[in-house]
């Protein structure tokens, strides 16, 4: 009986309470101190969710701010197949909205995967219709889609992006690091239904949108260049053609056109050959256009002057090779200026022999032959300049007239631009500036330049090249309002197994206005009919160059040298 005295009972209750309280304290210590981090992490995972924030890809703009490429928000529709109760009905409804075969949708809905895309990058209005169906197991993800509103314009230059918005070709690839931006991360607290609780989301890392790139391209000049190139290719039944226009003082590329062209919005269905920017990737033997480099070397070294008299035999025998002029000359003695104006192979070879192998090779290298120009575009070809050790007895002769050497269109344009720019070669480039979308701060492209010819040589060569347009092989390059300087080229295409094909590349390379040059341009046609650059490429030069100069509000030439009213175009 003593055991159940009031005092004992109080003691027992107190003990029980103390034990219970102790247990609570222990549990609290366990939860809050010993395993606090573990439980905290479990709780955080249960109520917090992290998702990535997709950055907006930067736009591509022409030099006047016209949009060339632009990213817009779209939706990708996906399915979690095991959550779909009635795949047949769901497939019927979805296929009716997305206009894709029902069987195709059904196949995806019956897939055994946990996640499957039904269709990627769907426009917002269609996505909204699918959302309104409110089907269990069907969801939408926000994505960005790249649009090229000008469609075919400069498609080979701009390039394209893949399904995940990464640049795959062209400028899109070259400047992926600047255009692509950096994804961000957002953490949000969700309610029991899984919906985010307002005000409790926290941007852990904000996404860094890509910067907008302003290119050196001028949309109007690019359009005119593409249109005239297409006309030239079609009229001459060429396989293809390309052209480039460079601001010879700044190295800015105002137009870079390829034909046939393609719609950048439809690049997955386009053959790979069409997407190539041939201005930079394709090399060819330039033929007589290379006489500009030979002349530059000869004038620089003082081997000849523009007025030097050159004796022109009917043919020239070097080793076992015989060289002739494509069009035999009436006179047997002409000035060096006339040798270039009339594109005499024999005269040029004689001057090159006087110059010698080493000096010719040195100047060709200085002018950039056999090395990429460094233009900001992926996949630029280097061209081909044989090593000194591999030169044969005829190499000096053949290289001086543009055979046995291969260049890209951009290399030729850079050489012509250097002559036009009084001997200073400026690295060609496509980027003008990059701009931050929100802050508007911009970074200008820093150009590079180097002297490759002395000023006097460049001026002498300019006068010689004016003669080509005035009365030489390039009279069809003359314009109404501006004096031009340039050189024609017609070269046989080398055969893969050696030797040459009965197929030609026609070229015209020139600049204008010749008295105060602003633009240099090269146009190349692959297998045209007729074959001569002066007949098929020069007229295109005339039309496009005149348009470009007028568009840039360049004052017309006052001292008429070879404008069309003075030049009789045959």
């Amino acid at each position, binding site marked *: 009986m003593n055991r159940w005295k009031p005092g004992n009972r109080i003691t027992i209750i107190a003990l029980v309470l103390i034990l219970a309280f102790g247990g609570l304290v222990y549990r609290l210590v366990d939860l809050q101190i010993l395993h606090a981090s573990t439980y905290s992490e479990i709780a955080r995972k249960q109520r917090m969710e992290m998702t990535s924030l997709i950055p907006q890809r930067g736009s591509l703009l022409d030099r006047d701010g*016209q949009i060339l490429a632009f990213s817009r928000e779209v939706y990708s529709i996906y399915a979690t197949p095991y959550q779909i109760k009635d795949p047949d009905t769901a497939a019927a409804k979805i296929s009716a909205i997305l206009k894709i075969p029902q069987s195709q949708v059904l196949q995806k809905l019956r897939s055994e995967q946990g996640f499957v895309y039904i269709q990627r990058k769907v426009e917002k209005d269609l996505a909204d219709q699918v959302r309104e169906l409110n089907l269990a197991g069907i969801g939408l993800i926000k994505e960005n889609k790249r649009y090229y509103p000008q469609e075919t314009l400069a498609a080979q230059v701009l390039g394209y992006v893949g399904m995940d918005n990464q640049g795959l070709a062209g400028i899109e690839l070259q400047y992926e690091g600047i255009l692509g931006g950096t994804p961000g991360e957002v953490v949000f607290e969700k309610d029991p239904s899984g919906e985010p609780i307002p005000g409790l989301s926290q941007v852990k890392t904000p996404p860094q949108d890509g910067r907008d790139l302003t290119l050196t391209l001028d949309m109007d000049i690019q359009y005119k260049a593409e249109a005239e190139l297409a006309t030239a290719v079609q009229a001459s039944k060429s396989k293809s053609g390309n052209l480039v226009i460079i601001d010879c003082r700044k190295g800015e590329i105002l137009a870079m056109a390829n034909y046939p062209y393609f719609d950048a919005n439809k690049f997955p269905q386009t053959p790979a050959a069409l997407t190539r920017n041939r201005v930079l990737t394709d090399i060819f033997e330039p033929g007589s256009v290379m006489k500009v480099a030979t002349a530059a070397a000869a004038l620089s070294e003082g081997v000849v002057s523009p007025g030097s008299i050159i004796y022109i035999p009917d043919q020239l025998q070097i080793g076992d090779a015989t060289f002739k002029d494509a069009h035999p000359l009436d006179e047997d003695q002409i000035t060096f200026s006339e040798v270039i104006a009339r594109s005499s192979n024999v005269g040029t070879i004689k001057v090159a022999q006087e110059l010698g192998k080493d000096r010719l090779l040195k100047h060709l290298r200085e002018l950039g032959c056999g090395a990429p120009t460094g233009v900001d575009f992926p996949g630029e070809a280097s061209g081909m300049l044989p090593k000194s050790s591999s030169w044969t007895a005829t190499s000096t002769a053949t290289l001086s007239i543009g055979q046995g050497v291969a260049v890209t269109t951009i290399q030729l344009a850079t050489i012509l631009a250097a002559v036009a720019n009084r001997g200073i070669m400026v690295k060609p480039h496509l980027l003008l500036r990059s701009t931050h979308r929100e802050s508007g701060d911009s970074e200008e492209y820093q150009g590079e330049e180097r002297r490759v010819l002395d000023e006097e040589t460049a001026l002498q060569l300019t006068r010689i090249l004016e003669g080509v347009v005035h009365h030489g092989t390039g009279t069809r390059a003359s314009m109404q309002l501006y004096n031009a300087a340039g050189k024609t080229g017609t070269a046989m295409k080398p055969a893969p197994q050696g030797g040459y094909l009965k197929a030609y590349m026609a070229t015209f390379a020139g600049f204008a206005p010749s008295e105060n040059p602003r633009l240099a341009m090269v146009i190349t046609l692959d297998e045209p009919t007729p074959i001569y650059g002066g007949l098929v490429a020069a007229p295109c030069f005339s039309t496009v160059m005149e348009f470009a100069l007028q568009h840039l509000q360049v004052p017309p030439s006052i001292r008429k040298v070879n404008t069309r009213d003075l030049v009789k175009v045959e």
Partner: protein
Amino acid sequence: MQHALRTLPAEREWRAPAKERERERSSQIGVKTQGRVRTRRVYLAFLLVLFLLSALLFLVAALNVTISQKGYRLRQLEEEIHREKKAQESLRLEVAKLESPARIERIARQNLGMILPSVTELVGAGGKGVLSKGP
């Protein structure tokens, strides 16, 4: 208490004078009154703290409600900004398509019957026109 005092032997031996006993009794009554006053003050202080705590709780609750409301409003505004930005993007894209030189030339040629000029006209500062033959 008195009973306990009486049982003490020392108390039995010594008894205080009547006046002093009276004074002592009065002081004991004063102590009791002071105790009651202190208890009341503690009670009042407790009530005050309770009131303040309750007020604080209400304040916190009200603030939370306001924050939630503002949060919803903020989210609505953010969504609205997002929508407007997307609309702006669509319009920019539309403008870019409309400004396409290919489209303009097509409309000029097909719908308006325009052709490229065959003559380039240069107008001098004095207003005298200079004509140049076209291609």
